[in-house]
């Protein structure tokens, strides 16, 4: 007798809610520090570099490059139909890097060259949570 475990989904906090609200609207949003003149990730209520409150949310391009990754053979709960799958770090063109999945490409090392261009797509998981995932950039 087995119980199929649920896929892990984020539970937003007050500081991260705008990020997840953006994803729900199919927009990737990052925080920008007007004092450091730089984006940062993950979301926080003030800049982790200079502690300034002078920050704002900006919608970014959703473009980036494949920085590093693994091809995970053993599925996490809820990923049984996707294994093997790519757990990657995407370096966004605006600077920060974040974890995501690379989809719409066969998960083999020869298809996943470091620094290859990527673009965001959005996967609606339920009524409130939409995840940013990435695929090889079109026309790259």
């Amino acid at each position, binding site marked *: 007798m087995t119980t199929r475990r649920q896929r*892990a989904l*984020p539970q937003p*906090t007050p500081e991260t809610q705008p990020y997840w609200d953006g994803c729900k609207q199919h927009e990737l949003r990052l925080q920008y520090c007007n004092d450091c003149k730089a984006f940062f990730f*993950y979301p926080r*209520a003030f800049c982790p570099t200079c502690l300034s409150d002078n920050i704002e949310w900006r919608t970014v391009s959703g473009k980036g490059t494949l920085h590093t990754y*693994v091809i*995970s053979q053993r599925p996490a709960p809820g990923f049984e139909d996707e294994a093997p799958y790519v757990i990657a770090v995407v370096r966004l063109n605006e600077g920060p890097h*974040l*974890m995501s999945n690379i989809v719409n490409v066969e998960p083999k090392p020869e298809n996943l060259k470091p620094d290859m261009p990527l673009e965001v797509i959005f996967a609606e998981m339920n009524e409130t*949570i939409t995840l940013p995932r990435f695929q090889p950039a079109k026309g790259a």
Partner: protein
Amino acid sequence: MAPDLRKQVAIIGAAETDTVGVIPDVSEIQLHANAARNAIRDAGIDKNLIDGIASAGQSPVAVADYLGIVPQYLDGTSVGGCSFMIHVSHAVAALTAGYCNYVLITHGESGRSRVGKGGFGGGASSIPGQFEAPYGTFGAPSQFPVPIVRHMQKYGTTEEQLAAVAVSTRAWAAKNTRAMMRDPITIDDVLNSRLISWPLHLLECCLVTDGGGALILTTAEKARDFKKPPVYVLGTGESCEDVMVSTMHDFTESRSFKTSGDRAFRLAGIERKDVNHLQLYDAFVHTPMYALEALGFVKPGESGPFFAEMRGAPGGELPVNTNGGGLSYTHTGMYGMFALQESVRQLRGEAEAQLPNVKISLAHGPGGMFSAAGTVIMTNQG
């Protein structure tokens, strides 16, 4: 004779969050950060001077990462409400010992509103719960190897070089009757073993075992009264970097390893070449590679050739993981204790794969996925 610690350490900043009471719009980690920023402003100190961090409830790794602090002293003592008194007590020792210069002790707890509650590993509202787990991370094999491809890209590190770490370590395990895996293996055996999380195969991942270890320490003066030859602590280091492997600053190196190692060597007052024996925590084959580079035993990018040329294997110039490591000896989950035990055995002359003339041994390991680091340099020379 203990040093006189009276009035050697002072509190220079103290503050609470802007409000206390009911705060439903701030997560627990942000409460730590808000209190910390207020204390920083109260002291009028440059945040970047802070190089020690202590917290309970939320881990000091999470707090340091959240605030962009690079510590060389960590205290995560979490034993309940008095944890912060204990943090002060430990900070007095750390500051007078020169472990660090400024210690930040934080508390934040969403005890009523329960927004983003902490706890080891965190839940769905923790930073890793929001920004890693949704992408299918599932235990260490899916997360710890994430940086490797970047090391391969920058330095030309190969899958064969990674596999050589497992081969080298197994050769030591073959000499240790207590090791779980003792049959010699080849590079091909490693690369033909089951793929776990590309680029790593089964034989490149640590064992999962049961076991335990313990240490007893006292002053050098008292140590002379006991039956075993003393193993003296020469220097120690510690640090942390990221709360998630995906937010490491540079995937080709471990900043926490380097900060920890640098402190240990500074306090020990020795050179890298003085070290005869290394115990480098090997959760996966790349972990000792990153350690060898960050601790300064080889240049960045040279750990692959080091292991491929069997320079850490039996007969090599700098023996690494002579117990057979987490890869082949044992790995209970928090293996660091076993790395220390083998350093002690080598320095006492009690190891199964005993080396000749070991005078200085170094044990080093990560916590989490390159999240934290600890280093201990030991000697048998009184």
